[in-house]
């Protein structure tokens, strides 16, 4: 595989892994949501994310060739080969953690895909166009929850404050480009994520104003996920996700 193709497939895998891991994490709520309607909502969001991941894995498999398939990429890579951001692999926590994380991620994805519409890579531009419609709903749904809980009761507000304290240090990584992100951004294929940060912060500020929450002043952020250095949580998630294919290789429904 040529160097450029390798870099592009790394980038596509990074995008795919973000969507798959958050989709898998959210799907843990299936049957456990606070009320039936919200159980359905979060699992529908999972479905959208896993659908986006499938489109991206199919493209990555095409770039990698050599017998790669979307299933092999999702089910047979180890934690160190995953390039997702740490934010998406963190435990689901309570409803405040789940909805605040979804808001942080969806607001980022929205800005990312709006830029990716202009990618010189037509496949990525098409996936961005398709996904953007879905992400619009995710941003709205998650924003409403952040406001509802943040500006709710003392208990719900405290839960949101705790979620914010847990998650904030993992948001910085979204906007610090890895080497492969820098390369594809320079080629007009990928998005320069560092350019998204100001707009993202503005969106967070707008929602936090209504939610009576304050953006933390800490400037130190956790990182490593994009290079395959993960938290201890990813291994457990993958054990769950990949069990069937590891135990029964090639098994189909």
């Amino acid at each position, binding site marked *: 595989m040529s160097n450029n193709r390798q870099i592009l497939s790394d980038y596509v895998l990074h995008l795919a892994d973000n969507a798959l891991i958050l989709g898998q994490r959210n799907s843990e709520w299936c049957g456990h949501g606070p009320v039936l309607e919200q159980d*359905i909502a979060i699992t529908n969001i999972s479905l*959208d994310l896993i659908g986006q991941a499938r489109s991206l894995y199919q493209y990555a498999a095409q770039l990698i060739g050599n017998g790669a398939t979307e299933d092999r990429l999702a089910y047979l890579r180890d934690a160190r080969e995953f390039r997702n951001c740490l934010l998406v692999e963190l435990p689901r926590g309570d409803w405040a953690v789940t909805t605040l994380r979804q808001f942080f991620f969806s607001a980022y994805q929205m800005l990312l895909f709006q830029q990716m519409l202009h990618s010189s890579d037509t496949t990525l531009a098409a996936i961005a166009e398709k996904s953007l419609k879905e992400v619009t709903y995710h941003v709205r749904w998650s924003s409403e929850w952040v406001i509802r809980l943040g500006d709710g009761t003392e208990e719900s507000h405290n839960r949101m404050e705790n979620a914010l304290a847990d998650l904030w240090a993992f948001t910085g990584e979204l906007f610090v480009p890895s080497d492969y992100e820098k390369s594809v951004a320079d080629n007009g294929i990928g998005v320069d994520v560092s350019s998204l940060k100001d707009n993202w912060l503005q969106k967070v500020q707008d929602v936090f104003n209504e939610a009576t929450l304050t953006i933390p002043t800490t400037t130190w952020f956790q990182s490593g996920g994009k290079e395959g250095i993960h938290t201890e949580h990813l291994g457990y998630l993958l054990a769950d996700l990949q069990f069937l294919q590891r135990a029964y290789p090639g098994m189909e429904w």
Partner: protein
Amino acid sequence: MATNTNISTQQIWSLLEKVTDPEIPVLSIIDLGIVRAVNHSEESGETEIVITPTYSGCPAMDVIRMNIRMTLLEHGIEQVKITTVLSPAWTTDWMSEAGKEKLRAYGIAPPNPSQQVCDMKLFAEESVQCPRCGSYSTRRVSEFGSTACKSLYQCNACHEPFDYFKCH
């Protein structure tokens, strides 16, 4: 089964009207607007069906692909290639008027035109007409319903809970 070589592109479009959405069986894939092109070569007998998904993760798409194959095979069309395209992205504006009426009769409120409502305003609710009694006094119970393409509503007039095929 004999191979049917004398079939026209128009006849293939008609056959595709028999392929329905497995989640909403009153709607054909033509009503939904997900068939983007039919490319049929009368010389070689090869047929390409170009489709686009409603939502990225719609689990019905795999079933729809299989049903297209089976329906065409029943009519002797064997060499079928199904191509999936993502752009331009599907919109509920592509749903046929006949399809919208079928939805209403089935008890699902059809989608409003997208330019009116697909925006980012928080806590806003679309004015959706109750498919049972026709009242516009309805309220959204949840943004997401039984499938990705629907949200849950309830009518304030007749109290009927119903699905709304949301604008997309």
